[in-house]
């Protein structure tokens, strides 16, 4: 009984995945291109960096990087707090 339920659930889930994979847009053609075009046209001019990804990560989306760095810092704080009783 359990196996039948699992099989039905798997089939439904898999069919959803297949349908969405078939209906996917072709690669490189998003519905809204305004933002991408802006970055590609102006990133080199505005930030002076050749690497557009870095100029997005560290300039346009700087808050996101600040959050990432804080998450890493918090992870280190957590590890240190977890092993605080270890001597030597």
């Amino acid at each position, binding site marked *: 009984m359990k196996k039948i339920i699992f099989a039905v659930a798997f089939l439904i889930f898999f069919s959803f995945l297949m349908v969405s994979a078939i209906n996917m847009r072709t690669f490189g053609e998003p519905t809204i291109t305004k933002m991408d075009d802006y970055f590609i046209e102006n990133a*080199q*001019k*505005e*930030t*002076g*960096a*050749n*690497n557009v*990804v*870095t*100029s997005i*990560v*560290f*300039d346009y989306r*700087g*808050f996101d*990087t*600040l959050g*990432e*760095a*804080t998450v*890493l*810092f918090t*992870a*280190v704080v957590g*590890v*240190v707090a*977890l*092993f605080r009783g*270890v*001597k*030597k």
Partner: protein
Amino acid sequence: MKEMSKIVKTVANFVYGFILIYGFYIIVHGHLTPGGGFQGGAVTASAFALILVSYGSVNSKKFLKKDIFSLFESFGLTLFILLAFSGLGITFFYNFLANYGSWFGDAAVIGVNPGNMNTGGLIPLMNMAVGLEVLSALGVIVLIMAKGAEFTRKKENS
């Protein structure tokens, strides 16, 4: 963690410098080539993990010190936030050094070009700050976890 055989230690001695230089290359060239602070920091931390694994946690204590890593980590994050605040004349995270003419201030050639290190404004500086933070953060995690593994093994044996 016990130290490994002489072959492993020799190879680790040989490879260590190259991994360090490669990681720092990725950090410093973050605004020109794929990569940046996070990726280069992870590569550099893998060099520390290599030393820790090959030499053992007791012997590697001489050149991998947890307190120094911890200090560098806080310094990197603080430097990053200070660099973000330094553009506050216009907005938070404003890249005021780009195209300014001084430090990292050359204008990039539009289009395909071999790359100029002296471009990017605040981006290379932020890359260095984040790279420093990531490499020392992962170093601290690796060192402390090695210490904890040692501790639990001792406790299980006793």
